[in-house]
């Protein structure tokens, strides 16, 4: 049986691996959009360090690890400066927001690179709407099954 289509026996209707991966990605992408907005808004704030969201590696290692088979999505962080995701009220881990130290700080102590932020904004927005569309199609398929095609 293909791993990606395996449904967790303890889980419900929406707990198959692709659905959970999509939900996690949507959470991460949404958080990334918020972070970009925050960075752009603070482009002139002295001493501001840009932030970034990295959920892809977390999701990938969670998919490879035992967490996805056991039922709970476990957050693994490989770098010590990565903050572990804090669980929201639904108990799902949320993607961690970390300081973006890739760019050099300017004289005023700010390291927001506006060009990079705008590129990331386009990319994240596009992926977010695509992932949302995929989620809609997936749920529609479930609806087809429940209504027996009607």
């Amino acid at each position, binding site marked *: 049986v*293909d791993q*990606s*289509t395996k449904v967790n026996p303890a889980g419900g209707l929406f707990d*198959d*691996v*692709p659905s959970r*991966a*999509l939900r*996690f*990605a949507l959470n991460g992408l949404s958080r990334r959009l918020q972070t970009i907005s925050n960075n752009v808004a603070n482009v002139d704030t002295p001493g501001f360090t840009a932030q970034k969201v990295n959920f*892809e590696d977390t*999701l*990938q290692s969670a*998919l490879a690890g035992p967490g996805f088979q056991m039922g709970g999505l476990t957050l693994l962080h490989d770098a010590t400066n990565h903050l572990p995701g804090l669980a929201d009220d639904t108990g799902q881990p949320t993607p961690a927001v970390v300081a973006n130290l890739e760019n050099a700080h300017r004289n005023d102590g700010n390291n927001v690179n506006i060009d990079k932020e705008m590129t990331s904004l386009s990319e994240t927005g*596009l*992926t977010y709407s*695509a*992932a949302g*569309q*995929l989620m809609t*199609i*997936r749920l*529609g*398929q479930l609806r*087809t*099954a429940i209504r*027996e*095609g009607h």
Partner: protein
Amino acid sequence: VPISVPPLALAPSHVTSGLKPTEGASDSGPAAAAQTFGSVLQQAMGNLQQVQSAADQSMVQLATGQSVDLHDVMIKTEQANLTFQLAVQVRNKLLDAYQEIMRMQM
């Protein structure tokens, strides 16, 4: 009476290869026809499973940020969706046919 069911495939090659054994089975008795009918169904379900897992895989790849073409993911997902809808409709027709036969006065 041979019953032929189109395979649940969108690719033309599957349609022709899936239909051939059923058409040829008309002169080899009902047992052979039944067997081919079953294998056609099995083949169609296998194809559905294949299309679905291909879509699932590309979906997970997109979610994990691997460099996949967005259009590829959308096409695979819609193909899986349509193949599934076709499967459901064929199932409905099959059930209707079964009930029709069961209602027949013998």
